[in-house]
C-alpha cells in the first residue's frame, strides 16, 4: 500500500486547511517543489496535489507549480485534484506531466461529465468522494445526503474511473484516526482500487489500513500528520512495504 503525501497548494504555497475551511489555513512552506522533493527523498512513490485556489475558483490557479513539480520528478506518478471541471483543464494537467486528475465536486454536481472524461482520457480519471458515516456529502448546505457512498462509487466504476479517493469528512485534517470499516466496505464492493484519505495520524493507522489493504485499498493519502510529525513518512512507507506487497 502506498502512502501518498498530500501537497495542498494555495497562492503558490504549501498549506493545510482545517476541515476544508479556506480561511483556516496553516502555511507549511513557500516552496512546494522543495516539499515534493523532500517527500520523494523520504520514499514517496506517488504524490497527491490539491489546487485549493482551483477548487474554489473552478479553474487552475497553481498550474505553473504543478508543472514544476512534475518536471522535477518526471518518473513520479502524480495525481491532482481541485477545480477539475473541463476537458481543457484535464488536458493541460496531463500535458504538464500529471498522470491522474481527481474529479470531485463536478462528479456529484454533473455525473455525466465523469463518463465523458473517462472516454476522452481513459486511465487518467479518478473520482473523489466525500462521505460522513458512509453517506455522500456534497458542498451544498443540506450537505450530507441519504445516498450510500457505495452505490455512487459503483456508478463511477461503471463509467470507467481508475480509482476512488474516499474521504471521511468527519476526520479529514482532524487527526482522529482512519474510518477503516467504511473504507474497507467500499473497497470490497468494487473491483477498482480505493485510496483512503483523511484521518491518518500515526503508525497505528498505517498498520490498521495495511491489515485490510488486500481488500482493495491501494493507497492512503496523508497530509497534516506528516507535516506535524505525528507520523514519520519514511517509517510509515517502510512499515507499509513490510506489511503489504504493493
Amino acid at each position: 500500500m502506498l502512502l501518498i503525501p498530500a501537497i495542498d497548494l494555495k497562492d503558490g504555497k504549501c498549506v493545510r486547511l482545517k476541515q476544508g475551511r479556506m480561511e483556516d489555513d496553516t502555511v507549511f512552506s513557500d516552496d512546494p517543489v522543495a516539499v515534493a522533493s523532500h517527500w520523494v527523498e523520504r520514499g514517496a512513490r506517488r504524490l497527491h496535489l490539491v489546487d485549493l485556489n482551483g477548487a474554489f475558483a473552478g479553474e487552475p490557479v497553481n498550474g505553473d507549480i504543478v508543472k514544476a513539480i512534475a518536471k522535477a520528478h518526471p518518473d513520479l506518478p502524480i495525481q491532482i485534484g481541485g477545480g477539475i471541471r473541463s476537458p481543457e483543464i484535464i488536458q493541460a494537467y496531463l500535458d504538464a506531466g500529471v498522470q491522474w486528475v481527481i474529479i470531485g465536486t463536478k462528479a456529484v454536481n454533473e455525473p455525466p461529465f465523469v463518463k465523458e472524461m473517462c472516454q476522452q482520457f481513459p486511465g487518467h480519471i479518478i473520482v473523489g468522494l466525500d462521505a460522513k458515516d458512509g453517506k455522500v456529502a456534497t458542498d451544498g448546505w443540506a450537505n450530507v445526503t441519504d445516498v450510500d457512498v457505495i452505490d455512487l462509487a459503483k456508478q463511477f466504476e461503471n463509467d470507467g474511473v481508475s480509482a476512488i479517493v474516499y474521504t471521511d469528512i468527519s476526520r479529514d485534517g482532524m487527526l482522529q484516526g482512519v474510518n477503516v470499516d467504511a473504507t474497507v466496505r467500499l473497497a470490497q464492493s468494487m473491483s477498482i482500487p480505493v485510496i483512503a484519505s483523511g484521518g491518518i495520524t500515526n503508525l497505528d493507522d498505517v498498520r490498521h489500513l495495511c491489515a485490510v489493504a488486500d481488500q482493495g485499498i491501494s493507497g492512503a493519502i496523508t497530509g497534516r500528520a506528516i507535516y506535524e510529525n505525528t507520523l514519520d513518512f519514511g517509517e510509515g512507507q517502510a512499515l507499509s512495504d513490510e506489511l503489504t506487497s504493493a
Partner: protein
Amino acid sequence: MSEVVAVIDYGMGNLHSAGKALEKVASGQQIVITGDPAQVRAADRVVFPGVGAIRDCIAVLRETGLDQAILDVIAAGKPVLGICVGMQALMARSEENNGVECLGVFDGQVTFFGELQSDTGGRLKVPHMGWNQVQQGMAHPMWAGIADNTRFYFVHSYCVTGLADEEVAGRCEYGLSFAAAATRKNVFAVQFHPEKSADAGLTLLENFLRWRP
C-alpha cells in the same frame, strides 16, 4: 424588528453556505444557524435541512429536543421549509434501516429507489443524481416566478411516495413518479437541493422568505 429565520444545525455539517445563500435572497431578515430548540421556537420561520441516514437524523433530533421544537413551530403556523432528508424526516415512516418512525407531519412513506422497477421493467439506477424536471402539482406562492417543469438538482437514494394528491406540490419522474415537493398549510418541503439549483433554487428560497401562509 427584523424577522428571524432559523436554519437548523445538527452540529455535524458545514452550514456556511446556508447562511450565504439565504442572505443573498434575504430582504432584511436575520439568518441564524442554530441547534438550540429555544432559538428555533423563537424564530419567525425555519429552514430544516436533513443530514445523512434518516435513522441518525431522527435520533439527533430526538436527543436534542429539536423534533418537538420543529413540531411546535409547525403548530404555531410559522413557515417551515424542509430540504432533502429534512423533507423525508417530516413523513410518517421511512423504510431505511428496516423501518424508522419519522416526525409524521405528512402521511407519506420514504421508499428506497433501488427496490423499485422502472417503467421498462429494469432496476432503477441508484442514486438519482443530477438535474431533473419538477412538474408543479398546484399553483403555490413557493412556485412564484418558477416555470412549470423547471429543472432542479437532486441527489438522493430514497424518495417520498404515498402522499395525498393535495399535498403533492411537485412531482418528478425517475423511473417512477415521486413527490419532489410536498406541502400542507404552513409547511413546504422539497426533495431537491435549492441551494445547488442555480437561479430557480434561489427564487424558491426567496419565495420562502416572503411566504405568508
